[in-house]
């Protein structure tokens, strides 16, 4: 498709790399992306090997699977053990280890009913086809995914499908960026903002980056020229000491986002505190179902609790997610922890930074 493939043109990328070198003028730049698709795109396209040595690429908490907390996985396992419950989930959550190393995959092997779905609507179809069971959809994801779950809840209401509910553990990107910036050990100089989350949010929720933290924030696409353009804009903002939040992906993101998707999300969900792997509890960084939808809320309907847990022994995913440690610096990386036998979630998801480092050979 011309709309994207034209942005892979090496000719354009060379020009952008030159513009980046000029803007940097020998200075260094540490940027962080907060989107699993960016992580993979930067490795897959070979951009990492082309970037000037003075540019440091950090992968932040942008993979919903990777930031899923042990306590949340424990709740999934609790659900999977219940009678007459079918757990419906996106596939990449299946292998995320919980506090005792068990995952939904283990539970499934032991007879639990765990079904992989591509869309929350598929989980609703599962409920329609299994009227004697309660289908619980695991609501994991950021602002891109939450509206799709809200739309599914609306459909469940309209079609009067009552054996369906959601365990809402959705997370919000802007509060996580703020938490990272408030952490004294954070050495990020600019953010590459997530293209897909921004289709929903638009630019306004990121304004605090420039206003309060004097930090450039650029919404970027996923083709090599898109990413390089975003890096050029960051470098120029840093050079000119003029931080701003900019949309460098206008073909897919409008500055005002998708108001319809946000309205639907707000109809069903309300901000709540959430647990992030590596970052801990962040105030108002998650989405809980509104009290009037208690019948759609798995936490209430099944009286679920998120237990206190201890971190996985030896796993350094938390520091990786904060950009404090590169994956190969973790003692488990490539030894005990590989994509075939992951210890931590950053190795489980194909979009996790450990999995990307492993797959693309940066050991």
């Amino acid at each position, binding site marked *: 498709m011309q*709309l994207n493939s034209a942005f892979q043109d090496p000719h354009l990328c060379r020009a952008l790399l*030159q*513009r980046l070198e000029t803007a940097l003028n020998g200075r260094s730049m540490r940027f962080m992306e907060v989107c699993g698709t960016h992580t993979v795109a930067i490795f897959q396209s070979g951009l990492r090997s082309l970037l000037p040595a003075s540019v440091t690429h950090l992968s932040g908490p942008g993979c919903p699977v990777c930031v899923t907390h042990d306590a949340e996985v424990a709740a999934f396992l609790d659900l999977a053990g219940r009678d007459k419950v079918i757990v419906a989930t996106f596939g990449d959550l299946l292998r995320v280890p919980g506090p005792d190393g068990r995952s939904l995959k283990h539970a499934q092997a032991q007879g639990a009913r765990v079904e992989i779905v591509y869309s929350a609507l598929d989980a609703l179809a599962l409920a329609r086809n299994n009227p004697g069971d309660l289908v619980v959809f695991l609501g994991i994801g950021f602002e891109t995914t939450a509206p799709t779950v809200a739309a599914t809840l609306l459909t469940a209401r309209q079609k009067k499908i009552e054996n369906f509910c959601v365990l809402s553990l959705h997370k919000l990107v802007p509060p996580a960026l703020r938490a990272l910036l408030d952490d004294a050990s954070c050495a990020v100089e600019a953010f590459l903002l997530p293209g897909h989350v921004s289709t929903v949010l638009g630019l306004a929720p990121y304004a605090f980056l420039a206003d309060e933290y004097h930090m450039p924030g650029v919404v970027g696409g996923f083709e090599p020229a898109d990413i390089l353009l975003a890096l050029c804009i960051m470098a120029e903002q840093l050079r000119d000491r003029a931080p701003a939040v900019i949309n460098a992906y206008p073909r897919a993101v409008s500055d005002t986002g998708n108001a319809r*998707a946000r309205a639907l999300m707000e109809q069903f969900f309300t901000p709540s505190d959430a647990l992030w792997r590596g970052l801990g509890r962040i105030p108002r960084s998650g989405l809980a179902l509104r009290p009037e939808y208690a019948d759609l809320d798995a936490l209430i309907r099944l009286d679920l609790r998120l237990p206190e847990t201890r971190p996985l022994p030896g796993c350094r995913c938390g520091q990786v997610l904060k950009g404090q440690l590169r994956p190969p610096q973790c003692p488990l990386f490539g030894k005990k922890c590989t994509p075939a036998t992951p210890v931590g979630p950053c190795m489980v998801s194909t979009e996790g930074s450990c999995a990307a480092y492993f797959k693309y050979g940066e050991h």
Partner: protein
Amino acid sequence: MCLAIPAQIVELQEEGMARVRVGESHTFLTASMMLLPEPPHVGDYVIVHAGFAMHTLSPQEAQDSLAALRELAEAMEGSPAQF
């Protein structure tokens, strides 16, 4: 998981659903259009995430961005390559 894919609408169906073609491939999906702010048309390009179209891609914006990048590339032609 935050994966979203560009796709072209090939057929509008009942209940806000549409059949879409993924990229230029021979893969087709059924996706819901209910999150789009404007009613979609056959031939529109959309970004699909987890079975829902999230946004209509703008060919005009794509052309404008490309034109600006190509202008930059031409302006850089004259300067010596650094790699």
